[in-house]
Structure formats: structure tokens, C-alpha cells
């Protein structure tokens, strides 16, 4: 394996959790709910999946526990913003803080433990293609799932009746309610899906990316996932592109630091974030206005009865 290939491989690894978490948040936001708690749900996913995987010595159980933990966090959020029509920004921030704290508590006994690498699954024939083959067809299951998820979310939103209902509710919940669409039920499911995705992304971090647990290991990836949704103008295809741009920026700045260009390492660490701002700027220049944001995003809904 050449260095070049190795770098490309780490880019895939760095991008996958961003992609999964951002897709979940995208669906949540398209239903009109802004969940700023992605970071917290992800941290819980990472801690619980690692704890379960070590305890039962099973990756599958670990992944399941991670997703359940993300969903459990999402239930708390849904209770606040749907049940009590609480402010979504405030509730989301609280969820992040809760998740970071709680994950530290749950993960404490497992600090220092390690897991074996997850075996890659190679796709016959396709994995023999030079470079691309190794890169995309000899990966762990998570990577394939993330691609399938992208296609699935795109088809669901763009082609399915249920996706149309979800988009309508996100666009204008008053009209949607007037037409008899189940606003709160659809939003609950969307929030749960977002939680499951964040939990899965967290599981990937602790089971594949690092293979150990340490407090605060999500390191802002939940926030990056949130930014990606905006960057992608709420479209799944662009989330994929954005996640890989971001993943690449993260990996390349690490190599740049190692190569000692004489640039302060702090500045290089900031590169991915600067890249986001630049991308957002270019995007808004091209379209001339903020695009794609669901009309009812962030607004609490109380049905009139």
C-alpha cells in the first residue's frame, strides 16, 4: 500500500461518521426540527457502544447499543420540543451538554480498554480495481451502510410519498396540520432517526476509528455534521460531498502538520473549519440567497384544538 493510498483510506474513515450523523440530522431538519444535540447523542453512542462491545465482546451488540443510546437521547429531546413545545435551540444545547457529561460517566470504567479492528468486507471483483477498489470496496460494513443511507435518504425524500409528507411538514407545519398530516408523529420519528444515526456515527468512532474510549472523543464532530447540513443546502447528495471534503481537510491538515511546513499547527487545525466557511460563502454567492432551509425549521408547533 502506498502512502497515497493510506491517506485516501484515512479520509474515508474520517468522513464516514460525519456523513452518517449529518444524514440523520438532515432528515430531522427537513421535518422542521433543529436538533443541536448531535454532539451529545454521538458521544453517548460512542460510550455505550464501546461499553457494550467490550462487555459482551460483540461488535454487533456494540453498534446496537450505540444506536439505542442515540435514540434514548433523542427521546428526551423529543419530549421537550414536541411534548412541551420547548425552544429547540435551548433544548438541543442542553442535550449536547447532558450527552457529553453522561457519556463520560458511562465510559469511565472502560478507559484504557481496546477493541480489535473490525474486519473489512471486500466486494469481489470490484475490490480489484486499482486504488478505487481498495478505497471503496474493501471497507468495513459502516462505510457501505453510509453510502446506502445516502441513497436511501435521497430516495425517501425525493421520491417517496412519506418523504413528501415529511418535507411538507418541515416546510409549513400549519398548512400540513390543516391538511391532516400528522405533524408531531412524523417529527418524533424524524428525531428518533436522527438520534439513531448520531448513535451509529458515535459507535463508528469508538469501535472503528479509534478503537478505544476517551471522554470528549467526539471532538466537535457533531457540530461539523450540523454545519454540513447547512453546507449541503439540506440535500443528501451534497451532504456526501461535504462530508468527504471535510474528512479530507481533517486528514490532510494532520499530514501537513507532520510535514512541518513552518506553519503553526493551530492554523492548520483550523483548516477544516475555514474550509466550511469558504464553502458556505461560495455557495451563497452562487445562489444569491440562503437556499433549501425548511420553512418551519426551529419553530415549535402547537396544534389548535
Amino acid at each position: 500500500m502506498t502512502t497515497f493510498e493510506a491517506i485516501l483510506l484515512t479520509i474515508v474513515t474520517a468522513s464516514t461518521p460525519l456523513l452518517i450523523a449529518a444524514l440523520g440530522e438532515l432528515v430531522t431538519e427537513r421535518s422542521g426540527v433543529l436538533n443541536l444535540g448531535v454532539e451529545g447523542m454521538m458521544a453517548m453512542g460512542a460510550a455505550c457502544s464501546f461499553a457494550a462491545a467490550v462487555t459482551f465482546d460483540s461488535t454487533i451488540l456494540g453498534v446496537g447499543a450505540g444506536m439505542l443510546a442515540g435514540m434514548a437521547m433523542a427521546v428526551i429531546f423529543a419530549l421537550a420540543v414536541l411534548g412541551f413545545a420547548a425552544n429547540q435551540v435551548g433544548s438541543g444545547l442542553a442535550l449536547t451538554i447532558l450527552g457529553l457529561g453522561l457519556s463520560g460517566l458511562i465510559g469511565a470504567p472502560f478507559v484504557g480498554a481496546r477493541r480489535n479492528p473490525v474486519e473489512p468486507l471486500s466486494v469481489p471483483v470490484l475490490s480489484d480495481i486499482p486504488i478505487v477498489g481498495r478505497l471503496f470496496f474493501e471497507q468495513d460494513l459502516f462505510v457501505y451502510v453510509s453510502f446506502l443511507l445516502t441513497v436511501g435518504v435521497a430516495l425517501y425524500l425525493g421520491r417517496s410519498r412519506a418523504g413528501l409528507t415529511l418535507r411538507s411538514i418541515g416546510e409549513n407545519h400549519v398548512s400540513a396540520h390543516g391538511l391532516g398530516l400528522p405533524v408531531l408523529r412524523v417529527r418524533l420519528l424524524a428525531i428518533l432517526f436522527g438520534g439513531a444515526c448520531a448513535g451509529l456515527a458515535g459507535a463508528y468512532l469508538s469501535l472503528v476509528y479509534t478503537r478505544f474510549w476517551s471522554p470528549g472523543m467526539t471532538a466537535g464532530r457533531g457540530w461539523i455534521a450540523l454545519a454540513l447540513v447547512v453546507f449541503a443546502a439540506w440535500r443528501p447528495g451534497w451532504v456526501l460531498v461535504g462530508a468527504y471534503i471535510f474528512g479530507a481537510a481533517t486528514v490532510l491538515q494532520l499530514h501537513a502538520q507532520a510535514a512541518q511546513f513552518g506553519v503553526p499547527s493551530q492554523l492548520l487545525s483550523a483548516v477544516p473549519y475555514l474550509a466550511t466557511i469558504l464553502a458556505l460563502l461560495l455557495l451563497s454567492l452562487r445562489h444569491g440567497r440562503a437556499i433549501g432551509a425548511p420553512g418551519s425549521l426551529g419553530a415549535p408547533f402547537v396544534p389548535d384544538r
Partner: protein
Amino acid sequence: MTADVSSSQPLVELKGISKRYGDLLANDHIDLTIERGEIHALLGENGAGKSTLVKILYGVIEPTEGQILWEGRPVAIGSPVEARTLGVGMVFQHFSLFDELTVAENITVALSGNWTLSRVRERLGDVSRAYGLALEPDRAVWTLSAGERQRIEIVRCLLQNPRLLILDEPTSVLTPQEAEHLFVTLDKLAADGCSILYISHKLEEVRRLCRSATILRGGRVVGTLDPRARSAREIAAMMVGAEIGEVRSGIPHEPKGDMLEVRGLSLAPADVHGQALRDIDLTAYAGEVVGIAGVAGNGQSELFAALSGERTVERADIIRIAGRACGTEGIDARRRLGAAFVPEERLGHAAAPTHRLSENTLISHAAAEVSRSGFILLNAARRLAQGIVKSFDVRTPENDPQARKLSGGNLQKFVIGREIIRRPKLLIVDQPTWGVDAGAARLIRQALVDLAGEGSAVVVISQDLDELFEIADRMAVIHQGHLSPLRKVTEWTKEAVGLEMLGEAQLHGASHAV
């Protein structure tokens, strides 16, 4: 009383329907019977309880007490889906559409059952042709005019073969020809056995269409009658509980001095689906009301934006206000020349929804008495708001409420009053009485005529032809960004205006090759 209908059982009977919100009884023991194949009018001012009643019938809200009989059977309509299953279709007054979605998507999402996008697209063509409701399935709704949006609502219902169709103020955005077309459609639907509940405050329409009408006032039924057997004045009096006078014409005046002069105004649309303005000439003299008629989406909003200074033009002398060339200047500069503007959209454009009325005075009075060196003079603003509330009969639920808490009619009285109280030399107003009840509309029209009578120039952009014929001295029609010549209102007929609205007059004149 209701007309004779051969079938024995009425389609719908409401018995003693009440809806209570806290202390407010929005519906007070309402009885209403709709026969099969009947077009039944529901009349009443804003706040009379029409919307509440209709929402109950469509399953959006639950009645506090009372019973609904559907073909003689008691039913509970728990949700719009159940209403649609029964066969109730609803065309909302405030369109229940999704701006970012396409026409076809907007229709699909509202249909129960196994409707797919492609099937909707297919049937959309049929229904559009059958009823003359032209729609492009793949246009996003935010690019459409109010008239086109309403077509979506109507088509959406028709696709479900409704047994009872509820229409809320359906003609407010149509040309006379389109309205007549709609009436023919409704007559046809009724003849096919579909019952129609027709909500309107345009009495002439109701008399044209309906043989029975129920009149609501203050949440109660004040009369069920045959609208053809009574005079419009009599019915209007029942609606408001008092006589509505006609708009007094202004003092006869010789137009003197042009307050607004527009020469060769052309403007590219603000977005890809907007309407370009093409070589518009327009003058308004002090002391007259100039009316601009036209179907929504023909450049009215662009014209308003250009006249108000929300969008500026490349040469100053294209627009002159009070003799001063000001085409390149913004709204505030134009206000300083003595102009005032009332845009079409009350909430969000003319007024900030969550701001109190006193704070909303700042929008157009900031340069004047309510602020000093950057600070708001709260007491002055409150006094000003109170003055407007008093002189324009704005009914508020509380002292100095947020703008969004006012009903449409009352907020419109407030925003127009806010501009008139400045005694502008030129007032430009877009759709002054859209969705406003009869009493408020009369008050607003009177205020506009009075302002002109005092020597101001008033330009009224409106889709309501009756309104323009009532108050305008001179009138022109806007069609696809082109303005017809201004003529005295007495020289226009409704047919001539209708032809201009459809662009047919230009075709006949052969001056434009389209």
C-alpha cells in the same frame, strides 16, 4: 327559506354546534343545513365565526358541543383525513400550500389514498382542461401568483371527487371572466350532485350563485334566506348589524399638479419567475384616485416595488414624486418627498408580526415624530398608535397588542391609517382590501377617497374591479408587465377591463405581436 330539493335527506346538517375558546364563544349553537347539489352561501364579517365553523366541518378542530349529521347519520369528523374520506373538500382562504414544493407535490401530499406523483400529473392535465384551471405541474409554488395558487387548491379538491366542496372567498384573486368561469364550474359541479358551501362577502356573487344563504354574526346564525329575494344592502346590514353606507364620492375637484409621474419604467424581474415591467407610463394628479387593475402576478408587486423605492431604477428621472426626480432613491427619501406606501402583504411586509402596534409605527414614521437622535420616543409612538386605532376604528384585543394578534381587516385598517395619518401628498397602496370584511373595506375605501378629496394623489393597485369602479377617477390595467393607457373610469366597462386583463385587447389592437 331554502329552495326545494327533491332528495329527501340533506347532505349535511349541523345541529347546535358550539366552539368555546376560554371565555370566547366563537360558534354559538349554530344550525346549518346543506342540501344535496346545493350551493349554500355562508356570509359574515371577519370574526363572525365562519372560519371556526368551517374548520369544524373539515375536522381541523373539534366542536365543544353539537352534532353533525352526514346524510342523516351522526358523524364525528376527527381529522381532515376523515373529512376527506367522507367526501369533504376544502379550498382555504389562506392557502394551505408549501412554497418550496412543486404544484404536483402540493397536490399529492394533500390527497388521501394511493396517489402517486405521476398519477397526479396525469389527472392534473385532465382536470385543468375540463375546468380551465391551467397549471404547470413542476413549477415551485413560491414562484406562482395568488391566482395560480388558488387554482392548486381548487384542483386539489376536484381530484378527490368531493361530495361537499367548501370554498373560502374564492374569487378575490380572479378576473371577472375567470370568476364567471368558476361559477360555471361550480354550477356544473352542483348539477352533478356535489354540494358547495360558498363563503364570501361579495353579495353580488352570492346572489348570482346561491339560492340559500346562512348569515353569521358574532358566532350566531342571524338569518337563513334566499339571497335573490333580498337586496344586497339588506343582507349587508344583517352581516354587520347596521347599515353599511356607500362610499361617498370625494368633493368634485379639478386635478391639479402631477404628484407622481412615471416615464418609460422598465424593470427586470427580481427572481427568475418574476414579471418584468415594460415601458410603463403613469401619472397621478393631486386630488384623484388612480386605479391599477389586473390579475395577480402580472407585475403589480414589481410596480409597487419600483414606485415605493424598494427597488430603484437606473435613471432618477424615470420616476418623479412631487416634481422631484427620485428613481434612484430609496423608500425613506421618497417618503421625505411626501409619499407613503402600503404594500400588499400586511404581516411581515407592512407590519412586523411580533412587534406591538406602537413599535410598528416606527416603520414609516421613524423620520418624523417617534424617534430622536436614534432613540425611540416610546410615549410618542404609543400616542400615535392610539390615534390611528381611534380614528380608523381598529378593534384590538388588548391595549397596544402585537400586530399578529389583530384580524386581517383590523390590521389593514391600522397600516393604511398609519400612512394616511401622515397626510401624504401621494399614497400608493397595493391590494387595500384583500381578504378584508365588508365593513372594514368600506372604511378603507372611504379613507382613500377622502384623502384624494383633500388634495392628495392616491394610486390603488387592486384585483377587485368593483372596488376600483367605486373609488377610482382614472384607471389602467396591467398585463404581463405592460400598463394600458390611463382612462377616465367612466370610459371603461367591466368587459373592456376584463379583456385588457387577459391581454386580448392588445391582440385585437394588433399593436403587439406575442
